[in-house]
């Protein structure tokens, strides 16, 4: 699981790490993992492939809960 999904990883010096997941349907999802444990998740725009909105801030617990929801069969 997960091996086929393209995820790029870019360091954000001083802030954390930026992950981008590209979906088969042509959209991309951004996850910023802050060093402080905060995760930000957002969706890239359709007309501007490099921008995503401010998205949603998730605490560690919320991120885990969301991951569980998404991973459930």
């Amino acid at each position, binding site marked *: 699981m997960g091996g086929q999904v393209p995820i790029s990883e*870019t*360091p*954000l*010096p*001083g*802030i954390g790490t*930026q992950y*981008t997941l590209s979906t*088969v*349907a*042509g*959209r991309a999802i*951004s*996850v*910023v993992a802050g*060093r402080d444990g905060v995760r*930000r998740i*957002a969706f890239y725009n*359709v*007309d*501007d*492939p*490099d*921008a*995503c*909105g*401010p*998205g949603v801030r998730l605490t560690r617990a919320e991120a885990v809960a969301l991951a569980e929801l998404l991973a459930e069969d």
Partner: protein
Amino acid sequence: MHPATLLIELGAIILGLSILGRVATRMGMSPIPFYLLGGLAFGHGGVLDLSQSDDFIEIGAEIGVVLLLLLLGLEYTAGELVTNLRAAAPAGAIDALLNAVPGFLAGLLLGWGPTAALALAGVTWISSSGVIAKVLGDLGHLGNRETPVVLSVLVIEDLAMALYLPILTALLAGVGLLGGSLTVAIALGTISIVLFLALRHGGRISKALSSEEPEFLLLGVLGLTLLVAGVADKLQVSAAVGAFLVGIAISGDVAEHAQTLLAPLRDLFAAVFFVFFGLSTDPGALPGVLLPAAALAVVTALTKIATGYWAAARAGIAKPGRYRAGGALVARGEFSIVIAGLAATSGVEPRMGPFAAAYVLILVVAGPFTARYAEPVLRRLFGPKPVPAPIEEDDDDLTPR
């Protein structure tokens, strides 16, 4: 000196700063310009004359610079810096070329000596990582693809400062070309050794400093930093660079813990530093330099936008992202003031302080606006035209690209 008067003056200053800071936050602005204006208002020739607390503020300002750079160093790990140096060196070179050169030329045009012009080059070169990181977060740009590009330019600038500051310090101290190159050699050697030690033995340094008691960690890191900063100053590598290198050498949990412990201290002394800069600047000299400072601000705002555009294009970012990267980089702030402060206290050019104060006041305020509006404005001027937002009721129907 009367302790009572000292306490009253200090209390009034710090309380005043807290009010100014609140006003700034309420307006969604960086507090830096407010601290500078506060200093200008209370300084010699300002509306109020505070003289009792001069000594304390002067020493506090010195510590403020050291803490600003220490905390900056703590944010980076040596590994990050080395990887980034390899990837972003061309962007860093363009950045230096486009932004330091206008400052240098402006200095010469104003009839300043080459050393003062070199200081002004630094003022116009270095963007404010503090202001920019905050603005990127506020605007929700952290997830954008151009954001790593913006940050890597900032990191390169910070590293370049570690070379630039020793050169400037040496020249300001009046050593000749030979002495200058010796200082640069010492600085280069020190930086390489610190990066090497931090990469190989960073864990050990951090371990030696780590402590269960926050109190001892605080005292240990602060003591080591002041010591190294002092030695660096003696070697004319500049105290700020010494503190930055200590920050880089400390890594992992210890760095993170030290960051939380020292951040409030940094906030206090950095505010004192900005006030000190304002205090030692004659507000009467401001109107005379306002026009050239504003002109230079416009030019170097445009060159920063060009820098961001170029760096983002090189990273394969589309046009809108290039505009955003450019707009984000415009803000100048704390490091421009650090450089100007070095030059002003050396007395190399009397107009340095007022000129840099006016310049930074303009760009620290304008920076967040260019970060927000560079993209929509430049898009309207040069395209691509904004596409009306698609009705996103059924995203999954988009054909795979």
